[in-house]
Structure formats: structure tokens, C-alpha cells
């Protein structure tokens, strides 16, 4: 019995020793996160060098991109489609994500709604920077000035995000601080408040930003860029969709104030015109000018493939060659006549419709096509001016506005002249020699996009290309200014026509002649002239869809598409069996049901 008593003490004693031993291993410290070179918000704001990286991230495609062309298709917002393919009268055979946008089936549970989180991700970054900028330790006045400039950039980016957002949805929650979750709901603010808030940010930014950045920093927001964005926002705000009564389909909507002003006030055009003038002056002071570096009939093409002084706000893509796997080429090379140059690929991304082609003026400024019998694109009504000018469907490409040649590749056009002797040949008869038709079944319109397609790339896979896409260029400001003046003065004054003609003459087109345009009044005629100009000038720049919506011209987006077929060199019009549908409710896109369900105050738009 004595022995067992010892055991009784010994065993638990040993256990306790073991436990004490294990306890002394300092359990928690063993599992503690090791100190490392982690980047936290404090390291980010410990000096300007680090802090600028938060601003840099705002320029990344995910946030800064205009989403006008699908170039870097792995970067997400571009995955949600490109506004160019939606807005222009293009056939886009691989609809993927844009299908619901163009066929009218868009609904709040569609899988490919343009994601709102990118907008608020960027806004969060802007807010972080603005809140923390003053805590960055500085060594010199130059650094203080740099921080001030970057704060200006943060304000400008914030306005840019809301600009991209309100064009889609109308007003949004205005998030002006860094949210941690658990805050009171932020409801959508009134449309007028949103416009004023964006303008206030841009005014602030214009005070802080430099007129020009040093050479190594060009491409970042400048005074002219902030003013240009403000001008554009104010022209949008003055446009009929917002500057007028609520659209009839939205009557009875509980939150009309988020969709627009609700009344019509010409003073808004005045405000827009003033802002445009201010922006044009700032841009001119900063050295921006209309590009005229080539011959007039090729100016627009060269503008599209080069960075010029006309670019005020623009998105750059990684310069690369095809040899190094430059994906920026991808879409370029998918708008390429088969068999010209080294690249052999038959699929065709963007296919302009014949209706788009019909829209171009003749070189003399007349419209050759008046309309269609029963809205049937294969059955055009040729205007007397068209007949006089010798228009014929077989030679539809003859004597057109030079921008037609800059924008479109067609049967019989030249392409890659420095290394190619063939003409573009889209003949569908496989026995015709020297065809550049790849026989891809989904190439339906026999028309391709030329703009942004750098012909030099076909010469050699090692050619480097630096793609750049304008977000706002000076020509845009000129036309916005002319439009605003026309809106305010109930007709074009001399200044409006002057700026308008500067754009036309750059491409070798005659000046404004009211006779060429439809309309009951001088104002309406000039409006139509502006609409034509914007359509052909900004083709593929992701503007058309938003222009049509702000003008309440959504009807134009209802289109039974037609194309061309060439057989033994004979051109005929064909129906390509695709119809774009634009329901009125699409003037304001839906929010995804998940966002609405999660976010009190994010009221769904009417009609969904």
C-alpha cells in the first residue's frame, strides 16, 4: 500500500511537470505572425515614395479604363464587355458578356452586369489617400507640393469614378470617407447633388494639380484634364435625359431625384458651355492642340494609333510586340484581313453593319442614304443628293467622308501598303484569287474596323506598338462646347460653328451647311450635325452608347442588322439575322439584385 501511494503522487506529479513544460513553450508566441516586410497602411504613408503607389493603382485599367475597347481582356472590367461594341452599330459575333446589353434581356440577375465594386474600390482608395495625405512626413517644399498634386489626383479620380457610374445608373451613394462596415446606410443622393459634388471635387483638383507634369509623369491628371472632365460632366447633366422631366416609363418611381433634375433649365447649358470654354482655354494654355500631323484624310487614323497633343485624358496599354506575347495585339489582330502580313487569323471581332456605313456623308457633305423601306437595312432609300453625287450600292465606298476610310476596312480598300500589294478582297467565292477572306462563318457583314488597328503590325511580329485610347481629347471638348452653345442659344452662334468646323476641316470635310441636316429649326439642324460628327469622329471610342442615351435617342439602338456579301465582285446587301434591342428602361441600367439586397439605400432603378 505504501508503494502505491508513492505512485499516486508520482504520476500526477509527472503529468503536472509535463503540462508546465508544455505551457512554458510559450504557445502563443510560437504561433505569432513573424515580423516581416509587410506593407500596411502605415508603411504606405511613411513617405511620398510609398504613398504615390496608392495613386498609381488608380490608373490601373480596372479603375481608370474607359472600357471602350477590349484590349487587355484578362483585366476584369474589360471582361464585362466594351462600350464600343454596344454603342456603335457593330455586329460582334462573340457576344459573351455583352449579349444581354444589346439584346434587351438585361436584368438584375444577369451574370455580366458591369461590376460596381471597381467603382467603390477606387473611391475607397481616393478616400484613404485624402484622409491620410497630411500624415505623410516630408522633407522639402517639393515633396509638399507633390503631395498636394497627388491629393488633387485623388479628387479627380473620385469624380471620374462617379462620372463612369452615373452614366450607367444615375445617381449613386456618395462615399466621402473610408468605410469600415457597420456604418449607417448611404442612400443614393439626388442627381443634382451628385453633379455638384463631382464638380466641386474637380474644382478642388484643378487648384491642386499641375498645368503639366514633368516628362516622366505625363499621362497623370492635369488642370486641363480636371477641367475637361468637369466640362463633359456638365454637358451630360444639361442633356435631355437628365435636364428635363422624368422619362415617362419611370413615372411613379419612388426616387425620381436620383435619375435627373426633373425639369428643363437652359441655364444648365450655359454652365456647361462656360465649363467647356474654360477647359478649352486651359488645354490650349497647356499646349494641347488638334492633331493635324498627317494628310487630312488620314489624320483620324494616325490620331487613333499614336499618342498626340490632342489627348487630354487617355488610357495607355502596355507597349509590346507580338513576339513577346503582347496581348494588346489580340484584338488588333482580330480585325485583320486574312492573309495580309504574317498574321493568319480568320476570326473577326468587330463587324460594322451596312447601316453604319450608310450613315457617312459624301465628301461634299451630303447624306447619300435617307432611310430604309420598312426599316430594312437591305432596302435603302437613296437621297437625291446621293444620286447627284453618283452614289451607287456597288460603289458605296466612293467619295465618302474621309473618316469612313479611317474607320472601316471594306472590300477593295488598301491595307498594309508598305508590305502588301493586294487589295482587301472579301469575295465570298472561294475560287476568286487573292482573297483576304478567311471563310470564317461568323464573318457576316464583310466589313471590318480599321480605327485603332495599326497596319504596321502586319509587317513583322516584332513590331512594337504602344496602344493608347482617348478618354477625352480636344476634339471632344470642341464638339461639347459647340453643342452646349447651341443648347443655350437655341441655335448655333458663330463660335459654335467655328469650333464645329475645326473638327471637320481637320479631316478634309467642308464646313457646316445647315441644308445638309434634317430638323425643324436651326437648333435642331445643328444638333443633328453634332450627332453625326460625334458618331463618325468618336467611332470605337466608347462614346456613342452614352451619347445616344443622354440625347434620349435610345431608339437608334434598336437595329435589325444588315451587312454585305460580295460574290464575284458583285456587292449585295444581306440581313445578318441579328437584332439589337433597347428597352427604354435601359436608359438607367439595373443594379445587380445582390447589391440591392445587401446595400440599404441603393434603390433599384425603375423597370427592373
Amino acid at each position, binding site marked *: 500500500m505504501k508503494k502505491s501511494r508513492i505512485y499516486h503522487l508520482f504520476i500526477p506529479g509527472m503529468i503536472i511537470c509535463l503540462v508546465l513544460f508544455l505551457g512554458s513553450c510559450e504557445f502563443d508566441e510560437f504561433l505569432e505572425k513573424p515580423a516581416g516586410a509587410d506593407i500596411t497602411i502605415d508603411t504606405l504613408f511613411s513617405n511620398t515614395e510609398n504613398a504615390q503607389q496608392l495613386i498609381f493603382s488608380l490608373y490601373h485599367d480596372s479603375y481608370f479604363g474607359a472600357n471602350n475597347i477590349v484590349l487587355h481582356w484578362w483585366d476584369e472590367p474589360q471582361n464585362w464587355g466594351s462600350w464600343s461594341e454596344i454603342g456603335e452599330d457593330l455586329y460582334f459575333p462573340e457576344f459573351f458578356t455583352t449579349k444581354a446589353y444589346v439584346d434587351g434581356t438585361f436584368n438584375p440577375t444577369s451574370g455580366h452586369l458591369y461590376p460596381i465594386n471597381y467603382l467603390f474600390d477606387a473611391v475607397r482608395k481616393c478616400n484613404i489617400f485624402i484622409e491620410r495625405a497630411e500624415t505623410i512626413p516630408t522633407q522639402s517644399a517639393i515633396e509638399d507640393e507633390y503631395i498636394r498634386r497627388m491629393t488633387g489626383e485623388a479628387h479627380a479620380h473620385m469624380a471620374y469614378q462617379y462620372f463612369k457610374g452615373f452614366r450607367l445608373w444615375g445617381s449613386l451613394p456618395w462615399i466621402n470617407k473610408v468605410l469600415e462596415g457597420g456604418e449607417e446606410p448611404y442612400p443614393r443622393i439626388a442627381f443634382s447633388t451628385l453633379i455638384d459634388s463631382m464638380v466641386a471635387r474637380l474644382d478642388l483638383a484643378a487648384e491642386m494639380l499641375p498645368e503639366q507634369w514633368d516628362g516622366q509623369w505625363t499621362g497623370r491628371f492635369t488642370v486641363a484634364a480636371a477641367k475637361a472632365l468637369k466640362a463633359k460632366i456638365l454637358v451630360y447633366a444639361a442633356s435631355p435625359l437628365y435636364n428635363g422631366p422624368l422619362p415617362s416609363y419611370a413615372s411613379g418611381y419612388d426616387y425620381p431625384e436620383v435619375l435627373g433634375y426633373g425639369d428643363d433649365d437652359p441655364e444648365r447649358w450655359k454652365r456647361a458651355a462656360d465649363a467647356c470654354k474654360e477647359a478649352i482655354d486651359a488645354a490650349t494654355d497647356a499646349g494641347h492642340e488638334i492633331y493635324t500631323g498627317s494628310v487630312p484624310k488620314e489624320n483620324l487614323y494616325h490620331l487613333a494609333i499614336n499618342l498626340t497633343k490632342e489627348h487630354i485624358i487617355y488610357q495607355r496599354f502596355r507597349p509590346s510586340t507580338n513576339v513577346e506575347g503582347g496581348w494588346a495585339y489580340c484584338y488588333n489582330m482580330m480585325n485583320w484581313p486574312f492573309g495580309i502580313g504574317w498574321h493568319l487569323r480568320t476570326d473577326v471581332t468587330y463587324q460594322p453593319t451596312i447601316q453604319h456605313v450608310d450613315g457617312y456623308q459624301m465628301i461634299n457633305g451630303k447624306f447619300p442614304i435617307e432611310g430604309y423601306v420598312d426599316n430594312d437595312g437591305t432596302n435603302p432609300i437613296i437621297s437625291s443628293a446621293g444620286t447627284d453625287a453618283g452614289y451607287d450600292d456597288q460603289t458605296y465606298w466612293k467619295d465618302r467622308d474621309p473618316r469612313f476610310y479611317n474607320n472601316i476596312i471594306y472590300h477593295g480598300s488598301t491595307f498594309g501598303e508598305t508590305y502588301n500589294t493586294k487589295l482587301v478582297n472579301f469575295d465570298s467565292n472561294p475560287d476568286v484569287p487573292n482573297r483576304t477572306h478567311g471563310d*470564317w462563318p461568323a464573318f457576316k457583314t464583310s466589313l471590318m474596323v480599321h480605327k485603332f488597328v495599326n497596319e504596321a503590325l502586319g509587317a513583322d511580329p516584332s513590331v512594337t506598338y504602344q496602344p493608347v485610347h482617348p478618354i477625352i481629347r480636344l476634339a471632344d471638348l470642341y464638339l461639347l462646347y459647340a453643342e452646349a452653345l447651341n443648347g443655350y442659344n437655341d441655335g448655333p452662334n458663330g463660335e459654335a460653328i467655328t469650333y464645329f468646323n475645326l473638327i471637320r476641316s481637320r479631316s478634309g470635310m467642308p464646313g457646316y451647311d445647315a441644308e445638309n441636316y434634317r430638323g425643324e429649326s436651326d437648333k435642331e439642324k445643328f444638333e443633328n450635325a453634332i450627332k453625326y460628327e460625334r458618331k463618325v469622329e468618336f467611332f470605337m471610342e466608347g462614346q456613342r452608347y452614352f451619347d445616344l442615351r443622354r440625347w434620349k435617342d435610345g431608339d437608334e439602338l434598336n437595329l435589325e442588322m444588315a451587312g454585305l456579301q460580295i460574290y464575284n465582285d458583285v456587292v449585295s446587301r444581306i440581313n445578318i439575322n441579328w437584332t439589337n434591342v433597347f428597352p427604354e428602361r435601359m436608359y438607367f441600367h439595373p443594379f445587380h439584385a445582390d447589391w440591392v439586397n445587401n446595400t440599404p439605400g441603393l434603390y433599384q432603378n425603375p423597370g427592373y
Partner: protein
Amino acid sequence: MKNITISCVTLLFICSFSIYGQAQSVVPEKEDSISIQEIEIAYGAVEKDLLVSSAYSITGELLTKSGSMNFENTLFGRFPGLFVNQRAGHPGDDSPTLRVRGALNSPLTIVDGYERDITYLSPEEIESITLLKDASAVGLYGMKAANGVLVIITKRGMQQKNRIHFTVQTGLQSPVNTMNVLNAQNYMTLYNQAAVNDELPEKYSPSEISAAGTSPQYPDVDWQGEALRKTSGLSRANLTVNGGSQFIRYLVDFGFLYNKGIYKPSNPVLNSDAQMNRLNLRSNFDLQVTKSTVFSMDLYGAVDDRNQPAQYAENIWHAMYTLPPNAFNVVNPDGTYGGTSIYTNNPVAMIEASGNSHSNTRFLNAGFHLRQDLGVILKGLSVSIGYFVDNSTSIYDGKWRNFLMRQLLSDGTGYYSYGENTEYYDWSSSDGSRFTGIDAELVYKMPERNGHSLQALARFQSDQEWRTNADLTPYLTRNLGARMIYAYKKRYIIQLASSYYGSEQYADKYRYGFFPSVAGGWVFSNEDFLTENTTISYGKVKASYGSIGRNPYVNGRYPYYQYYVNGGTYQVGADWSIIYGYQPGMLANPDIKWETSTMLNAGLELELFEQLSFETDFFIDQRSDVLYINYRHPSVLGVNLPYENIGKISNVGIDGRLGYKNTGDNFNWFSDVLWTFSKNTIKEMGEALHEGELSYLNRTGNPVNAIYGYEVEGYFDGGDESAPSQSFGPTREGDLKYTDQNNDHIIDTRDMTMIGDGQPKLDLGVRAGMVVKGFDLELLLQGQFGRDQLLSGNPLYQPIIYGNAATEYALREDFPRLTLSNMNNYQPSTYWVQPIHFLKLRNLEMGYSFNSRLIQKLSMESFRIFVRGINLFTLSNWKYSDPEFFEIGYMPMKVYYLGVNISF
């Protein structure tokens, strides 16, 4: 909390000694000499009677009958509670999915006490393999065990004369099922039909169709026939030497395997075939340092060498299946590879001209144990300490190049060319991993006294894992566990187990979790009134309840900590220089912790006439704190949302086994049936819930693997203008018509509802065998029932859309209108949901052991030859392909082996 839990563990252990004290004071010592079947459980083995948790154990011997190239592929139909699905067949890359009782992730695998990969094991080196299923069985594994645990013990040396076992087997393999795809005439006819259905002109003229296959201008290529051999070879050999003396015991196992791929074309300048070979060596040494001290040293080394074409297998098989037979010639009359602008994936060229990709992985696993018997202090007490270090290093290299393809002009006079022949580009990379840990263990097995018996175990383990070169800090865990099993007269058993488990990835307050469990059982066959009963030779009821954890690394490392991460690049300045952004990373979740499973298990074990045995377990697994992204945060937050512990999933089921064993003098036979049934439901998952009319869109309340799509009402018949418009393309006669769930007269994503469940309901294993004199036969059938498979999106069942397709499927009577591009009919819908049931003959083995007198003259102990088949046939309601394998990729194989076992 931490201290309290440590105290709990301590108390649990101390408590076991109090019982010991009581027992000792009453009971005189008595040795129990009867040898009893023991079952391996976590860190130890228990007598069958004492097993009250849910665990099922088999011997490695049994698995040698499945002799597969991948150890995991020997596990089909072997364990009640384990779903095994073969989802791949590539040599060396053919692991099946393992799911315990319908869990959503793979089980933890433990080899000789430490967490290790089991793919590389050979059945011949395995002593036993045990599946631990309920909370009390896995209780010692804390945060890693909620998906069940497979515990593997390798063979060890015994004190005996040298024994040598040698097995060699060699065989042939061929795909389980070949896909039957359309020939050129069928393809062209269907293409024309689709074009006409789309109101387009026919593409192929009758003369072109009838000319298919007659000349290079009209090819009709059997792509699988061109790219695949009918059979290919594979071999395995294994040598085990086992023996020992009083002082040293050893087991050395040497293995070799070779698996050649099925590709037919071969690259003339470098090896581009799919193949694998492996050499492995295990040596387990036990050194009797003193009478009471054993030092064990276990070493395992392997060299695993794999090769494959530079192109991914998925792409090669995709090309074989979907390239139209008339697309182009394999090789043109001028000797170049065929190809067109649309189809640049000539599978023959992809295999023989694209280069290769090669990997060489070396493993060295070492485990050291020192066990001290403390019988001099207290009989039955022992302690041990251990250390292990597992290393692996992989070197990857390869060569790739582009190749020229040409398309014959339709008039046969010339070619279009695509691509060009380039030189080979070389690439190489490497990575490695290291896993180390220490453990200490205290074991007490009280000799049975007066009916009381007690086993107690306390252990501590600390692991560090460097997963790849990229992870700068190791993954760390710490585990303090204890278990006590008390039995009275082997009738009433109680088991307590607990683990206090810590993981580095949680904030301080959640770093350690405590996972207790309790189990109890009653062996009624040991009651006095039944001991003499010959009908019920064994009987037990048991139940367990407890909680266990799972710590997936869903948010990356240290998710409680707010990081800033790379924010992309942009080009600025006159020279387009790149600037690098930084931005907030995923929102920190300071409250993240492990997922918790609360499991209830109740079971019955019964054996009648010592021949018929039956066991079954009913289980409920309530998983809470499941990590889901919480989409209920407002979308204006502007940050990537982290996973949060917001989900709840419940899983219920039954598994069990019914066995019969007949032992006679000359004729022995046995049969085993195993089953597992389970069903899960999401109770909560943080989705943005729809309310009211659209609530059918919610996924909460459905099974985890639910399939969503449209309900098919029928076909458009041309006369129904009033039907809701379908938003996938213009509809015509013969198109599928979907149900308008929300009655808004438009069929779109808001009409999607649950149309199936991808989780199998029932997994069945049937094993039977017999031995007559020297002749033995064994077969294993495995089946799965009630799994729904969604076929939409699978190119094989969508003729013309992706190219070629499965013949019999495309020609089905009820196939919707064929079309060139209209996706209306190819939306996920009930038409494309196929319930799958199958029963496969996983293996069949016949052997003959030669007359002992004859072989004794050759100083052999035994000599046996055998033939073995694996995956020999499949019975299924799905006849178009392997009912288990719907992916497009390297197919699982059926194998025929011929082999010998020799023992000296």
C-alpha cells in the same frame, strides 16, 4: 480560455489515474493472455470490444489485390463511409477524389503518426489502413480533422528469421471507355441540318459527303485512333525484407513502378510520351536500446519521374474529341501537319511535335522515435518522443516549340499555311517543401483488474510546414491532446477524447480551439446472459458526440491582418515607363477562426454464428462557422470581401457493412457489402437573400453541390407565339421551352432554379472471394447511385457548336433542334441533367499457390501466380461514356496484370 483548456486536458488525464487507483486497491493483478483482434485508431490500437468511436480498419494485404499505380485508387469500395471517385487517368496524375461521409473536402491523411501524402505508398508496405469518421475517433487531430482521417501504419520488422516477399506484376492497360464520336459523313450531315435549321444554306453537297474519306481533299479522320494506342504497358515490382533479433528489428521495402502512356505518336527527337516511373525505398528500424527502451528510425525515399507532351492533356483530348473528322488531314500529302485557321489543334502534332514537359521529384521522409517503457515505475506506462522531417524537391523542365500546319486548298492544288516550325525553347523551374515536427506522448495501459480496464494517452505535437518556395513563413500548428478509454468487464465502455489545437493563421483570441468528444458503448454479447449464446456471437451498440475543427487557408496567410498588396501597373511619361501601384488587400477579418463540426454518431455491431457480421452507423454532422464570403456587406464598401465564419451546413447519413465468412477445410469463401448514404443541406451561407416572389433563387436550403438551371417544359412546336420569350437566341420549332418561374413572360437568369444535386447519394462496395485448395478468387465491385451530372457546357454533347460530339448522343431522338450557334438549347436545364448510377468491377483477381512440397525444394515458403483485372467492366444507366469521368482529359484506364508472389 487557453489555461482552462490545458487544465481540462490535464484533469482528464489525472482523472484516469484516479480510476486506476480505485481499480488497483480492489483488484489483484492478473495478466490477460488471450490475444484479441486489435484495431488501429489515432495514435494506438484498441481491442475491438473497446472501440466505441466510428472507425473501420483493413489490412494492407487486402489492398494489394487492387494493386493500382496510385495508392488512392486502391481505396474504392473498401470503407463504409468513404466516397471515392476516379476523376483522372494521367500516369502519375490520377488521384481520385476522397470524401468521407459526404464531406466537402479531402480527409486528413496520417502515415505513421504524421501528416503525409498517401499517393506515393505501395500496398505492400502497408500494415493497416483505418478510416476514422466520427468526432471521438478523430478527436486527437483537432482543427484538421473535420473531414475525417485516414490513418496508415506501415509494416515493421518482427523478431523472426529473415523473410523475403517478392511480387512482380506486369500488364496492359486501355481506356475504360472510348468515346464514340461522329464520323465525317454523320458530322457533315448534321452540320447541314443545323445550317438549314438556322435558315442558312447547306455547307456540304451530297457529293462532298459521299466523298468523305476517299482522298486527302475529303478527309475522314478518326482522331482518337490516330492519337491513341489500343493498349500500353505497365509494371510494378516490390521486394520486402523483414526480420529481426532481440536487439534489432527491420523491414526494408523496395518498390519500382513503370506506367507508360497511351499516346500513339512519338516525338522522333525527344521523349514526349505520357509516362511515369518511380523507385521507392522504405526502411523501418527498431532498435532495442535497453530492455525497456526502443529507438525507431523510419526512412522513406522515392524518386518519381514523369513525362508528358508539352501541350496540356486536356487540350490534346479536347482536340481528339471535338475536332471534326473532316477538318483536315493528320498529315498532308506534302508531309506537313494539317490545320486550318479555325482548328489549329492537330492532336497528333500536339503530341509529337510540340515538345515535352518533365518533372523529377525526390522525397526523403524521416521519422525518429524513442519510446521508454516505464513499467518499473508503473506497469503499463510508457513515454515517447519523436521528431520527423519530410522533404521533397521537384525539378521541372521541358521544351516547347511552335509548328507549321497547312490546309489543302479545296481544289487540291496548293496550301494555306499557319504558324511556323520554330526551334525548341527550353524552360525549367523547381520547388520544394519541408514539413517537420516534434511530438511527445505519454501512454498508460492499465492491466485489467477485476473487470476494470483503462487506457490513457496524452500527447503534444508541434508542426512546421514550408509548403513551397514562395511561402516565406511556415505553416504552424500545435496540438495538445488526450484520450481515455475506460471499460468495465468489456461490456460498458466510455471514451473521452479532446484536443487543444492552435493554428498560426488566427488572431490571438482565436488562435487555439478546444475540441472535446465523448463516446460510450455497450458490448451486450459480453453480458452473462449472452456469453453462451451461439447465435449472437458478438454484439455492441455505441454512440459518440463531440466537436472537431477544420482550418482551411481560405483568405491567404494571416487573414486577421490588413495587408496592402500590389495594385497593378500603368505606363506614364514620355518613355512609357511602368509605375507600380499598391492598394488595400482583402479586408482583414480579425474574427476569422476554424470551422466547427459537431458530430453525432450512433452505431450497432452484430455478429451471428461467428460468420455473419453486420455493422452500421448513423451520423449527423452539423458544420457551423463555415467559411463563406459574406456578401451581405454593402457593395459600397469598396474592398474585396474576406471569408467569414457565417455558414452552416448539415450532413446526415448512414454507412455500414454486412459480411459473411465461411471457413471450411478445403473451401473458404467470404463476401462483404459496404454502403454509405449521405445528404447535405446548406442552412446558412451569407448570400444576399431574395425575398418574396424570387426566393426560389436563393441557394440557402439546398445541397452544397446543387445544380441550377431551367426546367424544360417541352419543345417549341411552331404554333406558340404566346410562349414567354427566351433570352438566349431566337427560338424555332424543336427548341427547348423553359418554365417561366417568375411569370414575367421572359425566360432569363431569374428563372433558374435547382434542377439536380451533384453529390452521390449512395456509394456501394461489394467484395467476395473464395479459396479452394491452392486456387483463390476475389472480386470487388463498387457502385455509386443518385448523382446528377450536368452536361451543358460539355462539348461532347453539343454537336457542331464546339465541333464533333458523341455519336449516339447527337443522334438521339429527343435531341433538341440542331444549330450552328444558337445557345438556347445549351443552357443548363433539366434536359442536360443526367442522373448517374453505376456499378464497376474494380478488380478481379485469380491466383494459384503451388504445392508446398514442390516449392520447398526450391527453399521457398510460397509461390503464387495470379492474374488481375482492374476496372474491367461497368454497368450503368449512362452508356455514352465512363459514368464517372465527364471531364475532357486523360481517361482512366482498365488494366490486366499477370504476376507472381514469392516468399522465402
